[in-house]
């Protein structure tokens, strides 16, 4: 996704980028404001020479709000140009969403069935998602890679991998 510099507002940006800039800036302002609000619950420091636990978060969040407002101002000032990069399309975004979903499912599954089973299914699913549809090679590659990672981490380096609550 192309995006021109936002300083000065001399160069333009596609409409989609401008909308994204505005949405992200508003979200960041909301996050920063929430952070500042929650510092009100922080206790006062007992040390007379200390600034307390709230000072730095408040400074960072305030700067984030100021910079987000600058981004909004620059975005509104800059001209809209025609986007010449090919759009990702619905299929592309669905692919990404399914990949993220598969990772989340793998994370949850790992807690119950452990590393090995969750990773084999996860890898096979991702390969299928990426267009590798061989009914023979997908499981073979998934099992081989899972085993290689297991041997490297668990056996060679002694780093324990999750067993899964169903098998503990």
């Amino acid at each position: 996704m192309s995006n021109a510099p936002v300083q000065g507002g001399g160069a333009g940006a596609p409409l989609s980028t401008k909308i994204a800039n505005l949405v992200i800036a508003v979200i960041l302002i909301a996050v920063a404001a929430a952070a500042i609000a929650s510092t009100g619950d922080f206790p006062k420091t007992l040390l007379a020479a200390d600034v307390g636990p709230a000072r730095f978060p408040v400074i960072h969040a305030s700067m984030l709000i100021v910079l987000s407002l600058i981004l909004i101002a620059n975005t509104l000032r800059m001209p809209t140009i025609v986007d010449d990069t090919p759009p990702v399309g619905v299929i592309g975004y669905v692919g990404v969403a399914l990949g993220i979903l598969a990772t989340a499912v793998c994370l949850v599954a790992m807690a119950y069935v452990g590393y090995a089973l969750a990773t084999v299914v996860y890898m096979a699913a991702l390969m299928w998602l990426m267009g590798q549809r061989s009914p023979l090679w997908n499981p073979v590659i998934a099992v081989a890679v899972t085993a290689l990672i297991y041997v490297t981490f668990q056996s060679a380096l002694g780093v324990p991998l999750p067993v899964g609550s169903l098998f503990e």
Partner: protein
Amino acid sequence: MHELGMLMNGVATLAANPMALLLSLVGVALGIVIGALPGLTATMGVAILLPFTFGMDPVSGLLMISGVFFGGVYGGSVTAILLKIPGTPAAAATAMDGFELTKKGMAGIALGTATLSSFLGGMASILVLIFLAPVLAGFALEFSASESFALAVFGLSIIASISGKSVVKGLIAGFLGLLIATVGLDPMGGFPRFTGGYTELFNVPFIPVMIGLFAAAEAFKSLEDPKVRLGMAAALGRIIPPWATYKALLGVVSRSSVLGIVIGIIPGAGSDIAAYVAYNEARRFSKTPENYGKGELGGVAACEAGANGCTGGALLTMLTLGIPGDAVTAVMLGALTLQGLQPGPLLFKEHADLVFTLFAGMIFCYVGMLVLGLGSLRFMGRILQMPKSVLTPVILALCVVGTYAINNSLFDIGIMLAAGVAGYFMQKWDFPASPVVLALIMGPMAEANFRRALSLSGGSYDFLYSRPITAILLTVAILTMLLPLVKRWRADRAAASGGGATGRAEPAK
């Protein structure tokens, strides 16, 4: 020269101990593997191997650990360049230009440059350790909380230089990183901030965020285009850079090595800080700073020379003063003590033979790293010949397992996934990820040391200008932050006036 004579004796002693030589090579090889795997750092590698060294003689055990240390710092660059998976925090800086070079089909030269620069940076640091240790050891004692705060601010000032296309977006990413860096226990009072009751958030989950922002985000991106899914990742190309090309980088490597050594000497500052600072200085002195971030060999050389230059610096204060420069040398300090050696000024008097044998072994480790590194690059580069439909799932599986390995925590995988999703959208809308990582490294260091310095000065802010090193570092930090902004502002003004005349920016209908 007394040191040279002692070093020659050390070489002779080492040559008579082939087991120590073999174990140091094993250490380097293990270090490279550990460094290359996401989630496993040199610190973890040294800690894992520590129990195995108990039964060894001091030279073999300590050289094996040193090999893991050196190999671990270098190993992170391999996956950072090939796959944009920074195996170590320092390699996150290398990934900025290294992965861009891979996308251009220059992965081989990037890897070769990284290996040579790591070797030169590391060798320079060991030579300084051998010949200048007592002279430079006092420098570390000049660093108190106020100087460490100023160093962290100097590190943070680099954000303006690594912001990519938009300084405002880079600064937003930086301050977002700083805000995230405040999650966890308050460094002075221990009060939990923004943790939501989760004990897993008591420490900033820095490495899961880094893996998510860099590796997972890139993997998610490759899921979006059906046309590239079944294609090859990239070509490896030539490995050893042409002499004319590398000769032009020698200035960058020398400067970065010196910066790495100096930063390594400072307690609390490690190879991650050295890599970012070296990158910024390389960009500052470059005739083509605009190429940095788009695939510039100088960027790779600077990060690697700086990160590996740090190794000797960190060892210097550990051996001469008993002060570990970073987490790895803290574990190594334990290894020395377990071998019956007490680091400090007396170590060089009471165990001079052993110390100089170790120094000779460290040189051997770096030579071994060069040979093993260059020898294995063609093999490791074969990763790029895998179809993306296999490589992307492997990357994501490594991200998941590597993140879990840090704290044996599934919660961390959730953090990595969230950072991966955020990184995907950041990449899409040109918010750079590097400032977030830099802020996560420097933010806690800046806050903790500022508040410590303030307490030490009784609440007075005088320490900001009354201590020379602090004042100099803060001045340089302000200049580093403002100069790119002024340059960009002037360039935008020129472009705006020129653009108006040529009509390059076309308003939409």
